[in-house]
């Protein structure tokens, strides 16, 4: 589903990603952990070209997205993105937030888009908030709407950029619950997270990133129980 070859990303003189190779198959849930500044978010943002890679190749569903920047709007439809800061559109109601892209990009009819949005809102348990503006919602509700909004485009992979880091602790659970359901439904997911419990329980594989590379990877069992490398061990001893 996703294949990354020798991905580099520089911001000016600062090299944030120093050669990442990864391969993620369909239906797999990958959690990316690691200290801040290790390049986790940059890696994720490169996967739908929110950051343009300096070097390297990314294949999404067999198509090189680094070679097809002209078709980027089309390619981005395959990868839904959920942000730390939710980034709901404050000028639109909840249901309009979800309907906008299906209407404008997929050119769905008003009725079809509404139907899809309503189904998704039911799925994230927020049907009663359809006509509210985002500013009336709690953080957890906002993030669930953001997930529904990304799902409305029927993406083949969902990218999560620290989806619970901006939430009050009591709201983390409701968002993780939605993500677990999504994982169970067979969605391919790449999740940058600090929620080690979630990574351990839901991930098929865990990437430990440090200093711009995937420093160690393995099943949650391998990474959390039996990390092979020093820095992985040090990091986990601090966060667990």
């Amino acid at each position, binding site marked *: 589903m996703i294949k990354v070859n020798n991905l580099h990303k520089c911001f000016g003189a600062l090299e944030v990603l120093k050669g990442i190779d990864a391969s993620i198959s369909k239906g797999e849930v990958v959690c990316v952990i690691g200290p801040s500044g290790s390049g986790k978010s940059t890696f994720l943002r490169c996967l739908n070209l929110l950051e343009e890679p300096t070097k390297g190749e990314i294949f999404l569903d067999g198509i090189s997205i680094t070679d097809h920047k002209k078709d980027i709007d089309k390619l981005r*439809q395959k990868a839904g993105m959920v942000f730390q*800061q939710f980034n709901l*559109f404050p*000028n639109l109601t909840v249901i309009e937030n979800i309907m906008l*892209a299906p209407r404008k990009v997929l050119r769905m009819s008003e009725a079809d888009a509404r139907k899809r949005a309503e189904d998704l809102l039911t799925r994230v348990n927020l049907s009663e908030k359809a006509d509210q503006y985002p500013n009336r919602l709690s953080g957890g509700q906002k993030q669930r709407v953001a997930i529904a909004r990304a799902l409305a*485009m029927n993406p083949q992979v969902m990218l999560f950029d620290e989806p619970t880091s901006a939430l009050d602790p009591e709201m983390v659970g409701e968002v993780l619950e939605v993500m677990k359901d999504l994982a169970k439904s067979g969605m391919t997911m790449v999740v940058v997270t600090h929620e080690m419990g979630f990574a351990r329980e839901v991930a098929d594989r865990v990437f430990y990133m440090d200093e711009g590379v995937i420093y160690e990877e393995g099943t949650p069992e391998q990474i959390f129980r039996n990390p092979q490398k020093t820095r992985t061990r040090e990091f986990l001893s601090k966060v667990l």
Partner: protein
Amino acid sequence: MDGYNEFVKEFANKIFQALIKDDRFTYLVKGLRMSIGITLAAAFLGIFLGLLVAICKLRGKGVLAALANGYITIIRGTPTVVQLTVIYFVILSHSGLPDFVVATIAFAINSGAYVAEIIRAGITAVDRGQMEAGRSLGLSYSHTMRYIIIPQALKNVLPALGNEFIVLLKETSVAGYIGTQDLNKGGLQVASITYDFMVPALCAAYLYLMLTTSMASGLNRLERRMHRSD
């Protein structure tokens, strides 16, 4: 007391001369209509021009951005009445367009530069996560601009835009310079008949004030309505 009576009599006569005799108030009414018409049309065109220029400037490099910058520099750096003169007597001198059309074009070009800077500031103030969220959904740059960024930007800058349109209305009072029969010109025409400036000038001032204050309160209402989503 005699002096007071004299004064009242003279004042009443001035009002009669300026407004009532030969229906002279129609100069002011026609002028008022012209001023409102020019302002509305120029504001409307100015918004579109301003949006276009703001986006050209924001997209950064190249000819378009340079043109946008040059335009803003020239308009903001020269007096409105000079711009009007140049457009009427130089650029459009052989166009055969009626003076009020030329005035509208000139004020739209003038207003567009100020509106561009206001809108640019508004767009810059919208969180960049909004653009990223739009693009990540597969929306194009222009769709994201149109449905997400610009509505938020306009809401942010509504007070500044309103101010600009109030300024624009007042600026249109120089339209008489190219012969347009605007409100100020209407007052001047009455004065040229009666040789008295007091009544027509004060009437014109009063009408301008009524217009600007009602624009201000209309904007307040609009602002409150647009803040529903907060």
